[in-house]
């Protein structure tokens, strides 16, 4: 019982421009319906931030032919459903019993084709309130919850679409106009800017037939022009943010290779080697041996226009961020000089291979097979990249990982953010400028 690490599929594009992808997996009598729109907070502009995400909320409130909440009929059919917005894309998905596939397609197509007649000012106001609550709950009322906002603002200039987070600025959300909803919908929510993936207990031909029947009637739109923007950090920026936290934490952020660009997979392997698990260099030094820190994490945030590499470590009680930072810098310098040593490459690759295999276990939801096919299709124009994606990791060498560390993790081109308990700015790294986010 062996399976190659592969994600087979079939793809067709409807005359109106909608990409349809079907993947068969008949193990469980369910089908995943996954719909991506190539729009996110990167399509917003300064002063109007948070709009793409607020709009996602409105997509669940009703459409012309089903003028009411989207959860009720789908839940009555046994569906699980959700949606999410990030800087680059918005996705909507249902996982339905095979018996309810047409219901999910009917509803997804109705809100793609016929949303506006059902949109009322009242629904808009309610969802604005819900989003402000979401912002308070997940950012303002959460320890270290504003750190990413401060980092993004420092990494990217004010007119760069990654300068703000997807949740948006609270003032912008309050100032948002109901009228803006229409033009946003017309610009971004149409077949040519979308990708539909069906995965699960479905025959491929039947999938195409149903997709054509439900989505084929929706008029084509103009593909929005892609967003380009440049950003760089030319020096070491040191910032301090006071927050309601017990223990100080230091964040380090660098610009890094964009999603799927050369060096992106290496940056991911670097993150693992530095901070994933007790064997990683930084965990071992900071938490295990010297006990200076409670935790350390590293992550390559791969995104469409440009990525950033983020490292974070929380000081153990009484320990200084300066000492932690000095040790982190020492370890980064080592990797940049020598590259991975011993078994580090083999271990990183073994974990990457296992995780690609684990990704084949679910058809739907965030990160399921339908979501992956759409990601490859939207970001690469071709769903056929599961194997290619893994191959990037297999191709990585000690030398390519070393070169990525040397090129991108430079000490004189990064943002260092200290988050410290309120009233204790002296716990920050020396020379840090106060920053305020709200």
């Amino acid at each position, binding site marked *: *019982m062996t399976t190659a690490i592969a994600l087979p599929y079939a793809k067709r594009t409807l005359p109106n421009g909608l990409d349809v992808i079907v993947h068969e997996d008949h193990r469980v009598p369910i089908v995943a319906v996954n719909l991506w729109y190539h729009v996110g907070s990167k399509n917003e502009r300064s002063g109007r931030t948070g709009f793409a995400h607020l709009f996602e909320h409105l997509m669940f409130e009703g459409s012309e032919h089903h003028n009411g909440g989207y959860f009720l009929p789908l839940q009555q059919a046994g569906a699980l459903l959700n949606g999410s917005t990030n800087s680059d894309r918005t996705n909507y998905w249902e996982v339905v019993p095979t018996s309810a596939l047409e219901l999910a397609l009917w509803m997804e197509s109705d809100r793609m084709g016929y949303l506006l007649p059902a949109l009322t000012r009242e629904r808009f106001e309610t969802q604005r309130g819900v989003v402000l609550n979401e912002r308070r709950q997940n950012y303002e009322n959460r320890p270290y919850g504003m750190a990413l906002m401060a980092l993004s603002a420092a990494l990217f200039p004010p007119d760069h679409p990654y300068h703000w987070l997807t949740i948006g600025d609270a003032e912008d959300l309050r100032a948002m106009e109901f009228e803006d909803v229409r033009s946003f919908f017309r610009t971004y929510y149409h077949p040519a800017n979308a990708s539909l993936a069906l995965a699960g207990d479905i025959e491929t031909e039947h999938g195409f037939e149903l997709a054509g029947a439900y989505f084929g009637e929706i008029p084509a739109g103009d593909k929005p022009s892609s967003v380009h923007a440049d950003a760089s950090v030319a020096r070491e920026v040191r910032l301090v943010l006071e927050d309601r936290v*017990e223990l100080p934490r230091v964040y380090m952020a660098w610009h890094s290779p964009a999603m799927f660009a050369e060096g992106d997979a290496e940056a991911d392997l670097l993150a693992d080697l530095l901070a994933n698990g007790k064997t990683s260099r930084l965990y071992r030094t900071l938490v295990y041996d010297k006990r200076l820190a409670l935790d350390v994490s590293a992550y390559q945030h791969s995104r469409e226009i440009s990525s950033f590499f983020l490292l974070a470590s929380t000081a153990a009680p009484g320990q200084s961020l300066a000492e932690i930072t000095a040790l982190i810098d020492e370890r980064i310098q080592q990797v940049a000089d020598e590259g991975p040593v011993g078994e580090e490459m083999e271990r990183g690759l073994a974990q990457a*291979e296992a995780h690609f295999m684990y990704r084949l276990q679910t058809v739907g939801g965030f990160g399921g097979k339908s979501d992956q096919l759409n990601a490859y299709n939207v970001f690469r124009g071709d769903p056929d990249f599961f194997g290619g994606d893994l191959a990037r990791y297999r191709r990585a060498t000690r030398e390519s990982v070393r070169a990525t560390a040397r090129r991108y993790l430079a000490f004189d081109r990064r943002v260092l953010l200290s988050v410290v308990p309120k009233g204790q700015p002296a716990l920050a790294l020396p020379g840090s400028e106060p920053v305020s986010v709200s």
Partner: protein
Amino acid sequence: MITRVDRSRLPALGPDPDFRFPEIAHHTLANGLKVRTVEHPGVPVITLVMQIDGGLGADPAGREGLAAITADMLDEGTGSLSAIDVSDALARIGAEYDVEVGADTTLFTLTTLARFADRGAQLLSEMLSAPSMRDVDFERVRQLRLDRLRQLTDLPPAVAERAFLRLLYPSHPYGHLAIGTDGALRTVTREEVVRFHAATFLPWRATLIVVGALPHSDLATIAKRAFGDWTGEERVRDLPSAAADFVADIATSPLLAVVPREGAAQSELRLGHLSARRDTPDYPALLVMNAILGGQCVSRLKMKLREEKAFTYGVRTGFDWRRGIAPFSVQTSVHTAATAESIADTLGEISDLRGRRPATSEELSTAQASLTRGYPRNFETSQQVARSVAQLAVFNLPDSYFEEFVPKVNAVTTDQVTGVAQTYLDPSRVIALVVGDRSATEDSLAQLGFGEMHVLPPSG
């Protein structure tokens, strides 16, 4: 071939797909370890779950956190392997390893590629049966847990969970979080951890579930090769008594408590009381009742607090099931200015469901459908299947449980929903907890009629 879509009505649903749970094969090793295997073809992945009798409810008074720190020590070295070596060994086979300390049992889950099945099982066996428990590792782990506990005081949901458990279960072994308390963690010794491990990690008190893309016989052989030599301590005294057998004090009047968090952007709320045991025959009706009130996306509470009033991003209700009596609770985080009104609205919805506005047949069928129609999707991955089978061991349920679930839920009536709401939900003894800005909320909270407002510290 569909030519034109009829948008005048939603399409009809097809017949519900047939759901069969795969066969669960039983094996018992000579050392008494119960083994359950399930064949899960498809992706070449294997999951092992070891269910050990003894969770946070087995913590002795004054040693809250003992079960959890013991479980945490198991990947800190075994035999000739140091903590770093164990982590390295797990990484080399791409394993995912996870520990869940529950109220009555502790679950250890390891998932790896099928080709590393024997290696993964062997590692898990060595970790569970022969942990090194070195002093230096113990001191480091203890300090990390103390520091984590301190960090939890920044996190409103954690502060709320902790305070709420103490209010629900005063002087009961269920009345604390698994991580325990600062005082207990400072006092506990390595010798106590070693003793607790010896008294709890015994093959005849454990169940191993193995799920993977292999035949039963191979799965059983993997279990036997790895765990067959596990003996446990020869003479064990001090078996922890079962927390489920402790009688809980049931509150007789409502109570309002606040953990002050001045300037908080939102109030974290918990409302509820001790309610039901997992083995009650009313279990299916309770699930349906909960779905209607607050357990699903179109629940009454969500429609009220989120969609009608925009007080919150989300609200949910549920039973925190355990072998002994379990609490029913409402969990949400609301805008500070809406704190008192959210509590009043929640209590109003509970009272309504108990009779003023009983569940309608449409609500009943929606809740049943949401619990049953999508049921097969809960068994897609080897990990989902293994953890489901572990629940049978945790709650002593029959193997037929999964296949009986759908018909049992579909047999619930509206009268039963009203009946269980009356029996198991009781606003007259509800405990309401607010973690939030006290000065901004206390005047309006005083109007709710709870009487005295108890002010609690953020920790301890």
